[in-house]
């Protein structure tokens, strides 16, 4: 293992210095993000239970569905995902620029502002002061706090980039540098046009969905992709497959994503060209997605057995594969003929979680498994808790996605003139015949199913979704425990990297060596 020392002499020492400078702010951001993840999961469970037991906690206005649902959305978006994303962004930025974080205390201030904004905003929503605009429910004071926190992050990222000592700007940095500009651009524009000087009528909806969709594609996706682009080659020690694919993927994302938001307004009273342009933009997203997928796939190609051992790798590869699936699904869902029957159903919720959870959240978990031990200088304490975390969230997510997709498709067909509800047809004709008669009924547009029957048909899937929420909560709790143990150095010190199974350490070493066997000193960086 002599590869470490030969590049620029003191790079290992520099790495330790960089990690030390990042330790406090990044850990504050990570710890806060996990707190908001737990809070967000709690709100999500409440909202999920209320969908099939509406009387549950219905007497307390603070916890009515109309408040816990936006509280869930905003705590996981701005609390969990953004804070975990910012910590990952800062660490990656410093590592890739090869300079320590300057004045790290200011970023602790940024984390404080961000947390304060989240607290004000969440309590505001629970008290009934939601703005009522989706993805922007936090009342105005919270938005100011979030923005001031983020201004510090942007300034620090720009300053770090300006001082960079690496001669080559790696693909992760393109995404990160773009993201620190894209997010404030989106947030300021939408606050100006919807809150401070609100536009009237149809443009409101257009701006709302331009923002909400772009937050996914121009804030979370770049950070997630930057983390995957860094960690995938880093963990397996192989170069990324193709620089040209990286370029193509980055610039086509920048070119096309911004158009996609208006596909949420299909069939709405919006000029046809706006919706059509957004459908074209959504379909064009196939270009960056297939490009990035190929680049990642070919980088890992032949070394998939490493997924058995490394938690970082398994989480980020789970995330990378989900990115491909959710993006292609999104391109398809933008078409009018699919959007019209399925948009206002539970299927859309499933799609949203495929992006925000299965892609972004899993990628952030993977990043934290890699980054946090370098910040604290301690390995993860328990392979068993990592296993609980992975299987809790992986199975929980799979169950949630299946329930919402199946339940949502049935709901969509029934809302769109299926004639008879699937429940009734199955009771009458059995499963196979019932389903085929149901599909025939939809094709023939046999007429509307009574609304209450449709609602009743979704109950089974919604109850199973609550079960999936409990699995997710168990996974998150295991991860929170791991994090607390790591930060406080509780429990027995773990020697060597913590894998899914402690006894696999030797196999992992061997597999890693094999993965790098064909690399020559010239292309291995040794």
């Amino acid at each position: 293992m002599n590869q470490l020392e030969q590049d620029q002499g003191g790079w290992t020492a520099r790495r330790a210095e960089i990690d030390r400078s990042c330790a406090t702010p990044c850990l504050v951001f990570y710890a806060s993000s996990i707190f908001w993840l737990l809070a967000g999961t709690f709100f999500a469970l409440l909202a999920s239970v209320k969908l099939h037991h509406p009387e549950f906690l219905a007497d307390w206005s603070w916890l009515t569905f109309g408040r816990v649902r936006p509280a869930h959305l905003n705590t996981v978006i701005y609390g969990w995902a953004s804070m975990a994303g910012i910590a990952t962004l800062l660490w990656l930025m410093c590592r890739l620029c090869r300079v320590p974080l300057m004045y790290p205390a200011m970023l602790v201030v940024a984390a404080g502002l961000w947390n304060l904004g989240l607290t004000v905003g969440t309590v505001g929503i629970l008290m009934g002061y939601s703005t009522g605009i989706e993805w922007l429910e936090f009342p105005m004071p919270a938005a100011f706090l979030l923005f001031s926190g983020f201004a510090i992050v942007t300034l620090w990222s720009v300053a770090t980039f300006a001082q960079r000592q690496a001669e080559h700007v790696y693909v992760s940095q393109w995404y990160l540098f773009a993201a620190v500009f894209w997010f404030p651009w989106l947030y300021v524009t939408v606050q100006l046009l919807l809150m401070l000087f609100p536009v009237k009528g149809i443009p409101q909806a257009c701006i709302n969905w331009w923002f909400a969709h772009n937050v996914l594609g121009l804030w979370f996706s770049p950070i997630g992709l930057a983390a995957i682009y860094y960690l995938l080659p880093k963990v397996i020690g192989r170069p990324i497959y193709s620089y040209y694919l990286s370029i193509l993927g980055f610039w086509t994302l920048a070119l096309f994503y911004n158009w996609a938001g208006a596909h949420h307004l299909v069939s709405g009273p919006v000029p046809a060209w706006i919706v059509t342009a957004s459908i074209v933009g959504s379909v064009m997203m196939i270009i960056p997605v297939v490009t990035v997928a190929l680049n990642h796939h070919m980088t890992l190609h032949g070394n998939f057995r490493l997924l058995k051992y490394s938690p970082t790798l398994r989480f980020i590869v789970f995330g990378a594969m989900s990115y491909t699936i959710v993006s292609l699904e999104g391109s398809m869902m933008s078409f009018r003929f699919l959007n019209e029957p399925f948009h206002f159903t539970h299927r859309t919720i499933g799609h949203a979680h495929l992006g925000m959870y299965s892609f972004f959240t899993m990628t952030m978990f993977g990043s934290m498994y890699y980054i946090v031990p370098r910040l604290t200088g301690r390995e993860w304490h328990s392979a068993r808790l990592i296993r609980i975390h992975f299987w809790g969230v992986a199975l929980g997510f799979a169950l949630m996605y299946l329930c919402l997709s199946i339940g949502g498709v049935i709901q969509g067909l029934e809302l769109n003139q299926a004639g008879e509800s699937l429940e009734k047809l199955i009771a009458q004709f059995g499963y196979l015949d019932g389903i085929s008669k149901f599909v025939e009924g939809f094709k023939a547009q046999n007429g509307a199913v009574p609304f209450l029957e449709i609602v009743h048909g979704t109950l089974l899937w919604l109850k199973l979704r609550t079960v999936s929420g409990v699995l997710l909560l168990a996974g998150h709790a295991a991860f929170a425990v791991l994090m607390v143990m790591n930060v406080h150095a509780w429990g027995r010190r773990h020697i060597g990297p913590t894998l899914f199974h402690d006894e696999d350490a030797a196999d992992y070493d061997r597999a890693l060596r094999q993965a790098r066997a064909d690399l020559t000193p010239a292309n291995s960086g040794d």
Partner: protein
Amino acid sequence: MAEADPRHTHQLDQQQEIDVAALHEPILRELRDPQDGHEPIPMFMLMLFAGLIFWGGYYLAAYSGGFRSDVLNPDPAAQFAGGSAAPKVVDPLVLGEKLFKANCVSCHQASGQGVPGQYPPLAGSEWVLGPDYRLKRILLKGLEGPVSVKGATYNGNMPAFEAKFNDEKLAAVLSFIRHGWENGAPPVSPESAAATRAAVKDRGQPWKAEELLALEKDDLATPAEGAPAPEGAKTEPAAKTEAGKTP
């Protein structure tokens, strides 16, 4: 500093050094930083992307409604067809029932029996079953004062529907009450409703029962110019007398 010393690699196994080494083991065992390979972009992918871009251009041109802000329907066929699509054929009895339920049931009741002493029945009523020219006039202008129906006398106010119902609706609701409750009288056509409407258009007040009883035929004193000959009307178009004129 000791922990930054590159000689402390993770293969070091001296027991006494473990604490120091373990402190930064994650950093020491790291593999090299990511680098770029330079494989070319596969040709099939570039072809696929070129195809996608062509498709995007076509789709944008075909479904954008000329990029006008007032065109909401992306389907060019629907957009430029204007109103030439065949009008939907509506069963007059279905339409009539709907109109009856919305406008008439509160007095005449769903059973068509009316309310004894207050609102006259329609079921089996000689006014409904008889010639339709009285019925059309009642619906157009209303009826006030005493009226005898099925041997009972009523004294109320039937409102005018001239402004509310067009000819098609007028014919539909009349056809419905003439058909329903086993009345079984022939329907009223929109054309005949139009002719009557034109004939009585100058009358200002509601009818009295005796005026209508005095009317022997559908007297179309002032037929609309070029209106088609009313088929349902039991009268010859030539009969343009002064009989129907409002006193």
